[in-house]
C-alpha cells in the first residue's frame, strides 16, 4: 500500500492530490514555468494595458506621420501629440497599440475556439467511448468524414455564405479542431470504463450521465489539458493563416496574423511592421508549446520516464 512515497522523511500524513503532484513536477521544469509566466504576462498586457489612457486607439490614423521610428514623438498636422513606442505604420497608426489590440483578437480566438473544440470534443468522445458498439462506430466514422473535408474550403464557403464575421471564425475553427480531441477522449474512456471504480459506481446505481460526467471525464483531464495547451497555439496559427488570406478580421481591426501579413508586404521599406508582431506572436506560440510539453510530462508520470 506504499503507493505515494513519504515526503521529507516524515510519516504519511495525507495523500497528495494528482493536481498537486503535477504542479510539483511542473515547477521542476524551468522552461515550462518560464513559458507559463510569459504567457500570463502577455495575456495581462494585451487585455489590461489598453484600459489605460496612455495606449492610443489602434485605429486612429495620422497619415502625415507614417513610418515613424520607434520611441519617437511628434505633432500631427491636426495638432495631436503622439508618441510612438514601437513606431508607426504606413497610415500613422501606433504599432504598439495595434499589437496589443491584435493580441486581444488572436488570444480571444485562441481561447474561445479552443473552448468550443474542448466542449464538443470531450462530450462527443466520452459518449462515443462509453456507449461503444454501433453508436461508437457511427460516431467515429462521422469524425473520419469531417477529418477528410479540407478546412480552408469549408471556411471560405462559410464566410461567403455568412459574410466575414469574427464569431464565425471562432465557430469554424472550433468546429474543426474538436476532432482530435474527441478521439483522445474516446480512447481514454474506453480504457477507463472497464476499471473497478466505474464498476463500483455502476453497482451503486449511478445513472449513465453521472458516470460519464462525474467519473470518466475527470479522469481524462490529464491528456485533455495537455492537448488543449497545444490546441490554443494551433488555433492562433489558423487564425493567422486565415487573416493572412484576408478571411479573418476585417480592417481596420487587426489580429497578429493580419499585422504580420501587412508587415510582410512592407518589409522592404518598413521592417518594424513585420518584426515586432512576429516576435510577439512567435514567443507566445513557443511559450504555449513549451507549456504544453511541460504539462504532458507533469500530468503523465509514465511518459516522463522514457
Amino acid at each position, binding site marked *: 500500500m506504499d503507493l505515494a512515497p513519504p515526503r521529507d522523511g516524515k510519516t504519511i500524513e495525507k495523500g497528495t492530490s494528482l493536481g498537486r503532484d503535477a504542479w510539483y513536477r511542473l515547477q521542476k521544469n524551468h522552461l515550462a514555468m518560464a513559458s507559463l509566466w510569459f504567457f500570463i504576462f502577455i495575456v495581462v498586457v494585451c487585455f489590461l494595458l489598453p484600459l489605460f489612457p496612455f495606449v492610443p486607439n489602434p*485605429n486612429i*490614423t495620422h*497619415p*502625415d506621420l507614417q513610418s515613424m521610428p520607434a520611441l519617437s514623438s511628434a505633432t500631427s498636422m491636426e495638432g495631436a501629440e503622439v508618441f510612438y513606442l514601437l513606431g508607426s505604420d*504606413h497610415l500613422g497608426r501606433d504599432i504598439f497599440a495595434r499589437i496589443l489590440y491584435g493580441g486581444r483578437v488572436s488570444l480571444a480566438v485562441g481561447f474561445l475556439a479552443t473552448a468550443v473544440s474542448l466542449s464538443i470534443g470531450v462530450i462527443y468522445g466520452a459518449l462515443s467511448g462509453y456507449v461503444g458498439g454501433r453508436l461508437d462506430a457511427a460516431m467515429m466514422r462521422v469524425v473520419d468524414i469531417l477529418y477528410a473535408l479540407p478546412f480552408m474550403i469549408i471556411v471560405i464557403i462559410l464566410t461567403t455564405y455568412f459574410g466575414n464575421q469574427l464569431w464565425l471564425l471562432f465557430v469554424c475553427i472550433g468546429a474543426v479542431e474538436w476532432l482530435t480531441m474527441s478521439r483522445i477522449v474516446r480512447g481514454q474512456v474506453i480504457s477507463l470504463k472497464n476499471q473497478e471504480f466505474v464498476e463500483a459506481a455502476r453497482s451503486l446505481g449511478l445513472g449513465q450521465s453521472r458516470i460519464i460526467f462525474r467519473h470518466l471525464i475527470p479522469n481524462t483531464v490529464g491528456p485533455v489539458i495537455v492537448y488543449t495547451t497545444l490546441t490554443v497555439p494551433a488555433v492562433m496559427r489558423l487564425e493567422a493563416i486565415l487573416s493572412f488570406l*484576408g478571411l479573418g478580421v*476585417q480592417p481596420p481591426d487587426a489580429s497578429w496574423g493580419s499585422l504580420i501579413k501587412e508587415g510582410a*508586404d512592407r518589409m*522592404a521599406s518598413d521592417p518594424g511592421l513585420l518584426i515586432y508582431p512576429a516576435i510577439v506572436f512567435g514567443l507566445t506560440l513557443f511559450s504555449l508549446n513549451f507549456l504544453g510539453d511541460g504539462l504532458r510530462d507533469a500530468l503523465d508520470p509514465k511518459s516522463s520516464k522514457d
Partner: protein
Amino acid sequence: MTPPAPHETHQGSPLHPTLFGRLLSGFLAGALLLGLTSCERESRVDKATKEKILLLGNGAEPKALDPHIVSSVGDSNILRSLFEGLVAYHPKNDMLHEPGVAERWESNEDFSEWRFFLRNDARWSNGDPVTAHDFVYSYNRILHPEMAAPYASMLYFLKNGEAFNRGEIDDFSQVGVKAVNDFELVCTLERPAPYFPDVVKHTTWLPIHGPTIEKFGKMTDTYTEWQKPGNHVSNGAFRLTDWRINAYVKVRKNPHYWDVKNVKPNGINFYPIDNTFTEEKAFRNGLLHYTYVLPNNLISAYEKSGDPRLRKETYNGSYFFRCNVNEAPTNNVDFRRALAYAINQETIVNFVTRGGQQPAYGFTPPSEAGYHPPDMIRHDPDVAREFLTKAGYESGADVPEFTIMINTSESHKDIAVAIQDMWKKTLGIEKVKIENQEWKVFQQTVQDIEYQVSRAGWIGDYVDPNTFLSMWLSGDSNNQTGWSNPDYDRLMKESASISDPAERYAKLVAAETILLSEVPVLPVYWYTRVYLLHPDVKNWHPLLLDNHPYKHIDLVRDESEETPE
C-alpha cells in the same frame, strides 16, 4: 500567385563549401548563394526579351475574354491584344487614330452618320475574312436585352441603340448600323458626335466571330466554351493560346492578322497579380516587364534612387466612392454631403496614395480637352458637420452601421481605412465597417447595387467629358448607385445636340454641378499612372488613356542596362 521561376539554375558556386558549418554562416551562405545565382542565371524577363514575349502584370484575374461582358481596364487590356476594332489606338497620342479593320472612314457634315470602309485582307484567327456583317452581328449581340451587357450603354451612340437595349424595339434593323456590303459599314448616330472614331476604339465596339459564338450556344449566351483556348477566335494581332485561372493568360502572334509582318512582339503573357507588393517583387526578381501598378509606399524609394524604370504619367481617370441612394443611411442626400465634405482629399493624395495624384474636388478630371469640372467638394469639417445635423443625426454616434465595400487590394484598403478614420474624426461616425471582396464578386455586388458605399474608379473611354458624365444618366448600366435626376438627364441630352464646344461644356458643367450637389459619388482623387517598366520594352509611350496598342511594342535587350538596386 506567379508561376514558378524557370528551372535552369547553376548549381554549386565557389562560395558554397567554404562557408558551410555553423548554422549562422550556413544561413549566410544560403543567402549569398541565392543572390549569386539569381545574378548569373538568365531571368525570365531576359529570356522573354530574347523570344520577344511581353510579360505584363495585369491586376486581377479577367472576368471573361468576351468584349461584350467585361468592363474593367485589365480585361480590356487583354481584349485589345486579341481583337481589333474599326479604328485602332495610336501608339503615341490618344487623340490620333490608327486605321484598324477600317482602312478609312468619313462622316456627313454634322457628324451624325459615319461610313467605315473595311480592308479586304482582314482575317479572323481561323482564316475567315472579317466583314462588315461581323460588326453588325457584334453590335446586335452587345445591345441585345437578353445579353444584359454591363457596358451596352457605350453603344447608345447608335440610333435606337438604347431603345433596342431596353427592349422597346424588337427589330435590330431599326438600330443605326448597316452593312452596305461586305466591306462598308454605316453607323447612324442618335446625336452628332465629332469624336466618334475615338468611341469605336473602345473594347465594347470590338467585333466577335458569330459562327464561333453559335457553335457553343445561342448568340446571347454568356460564359460559354467559346472563350477557352483552342475555341477562341479573334481578329487582332494576337490569338489566345493558353489561359490558366489565377496564373496567366497567354496570347501569341496571330498568323492570319492582316498586318502580321509589322507585329513586333511574338506574344504577351498577362499575369493576374492583385497583390501589388507581390507584383513589385516579381518585377524586381525579373519575372515581369511591366507592373500594372506600384504600391504607394514604394514610390518614394524608387524616386529617391532615381530609378529610370519608374513611370509616372497623367491618366484620364477618377477615383471615387459610390453611394447606394436607395438604402439607409446613404439614401439621405444631406448625409451623403456630410460624408463627401468630411473626406480630406489632399491628405489622401499626399500621404496615402503618394503617386502625384490630384485631389478631386469634382468628378470629371480636368485633363479632358479643355473641360473644367466645377470645383465643389472641398474638404470642410464644419460644412460636413452641418450637413450631418441637417440629415437628422445629432452626432455621428447615431448613424446606423454601414459598410464600405472594396475589392481586395492593399491600396484600396489603405484609402478606405483613412477615409473611415476621417469620418470618425470629423463626424464622429463610429460604426463603419470595411469589407473586401475578390474582383469578380465585387463587380457583381456593385452591379446589383448590394452595398452602401463602395470604392470605384472610372477611366475615360475616350477623350471627352461625356465618357465621365454619361454614366450618371438614369438607369445607365454603369450608374450602379440607383441615382437619377431628370434635370441632369435633360441637360445631358441637350448638351449632345450642341456642336460648339464652349456651349456644350457649359451644359456639361451645369449637369456635373447637379451631380456634385446630390453626391451619389464621393470624389477622392484624379488618377496618375504609376508603374514600373523594364528598359527592354521599347516604343512604350505615355498615353492619357493608357490603351497601348501592343503590336507596336518592341523588345530589345537594353545594353546600357545596369540594374540599379
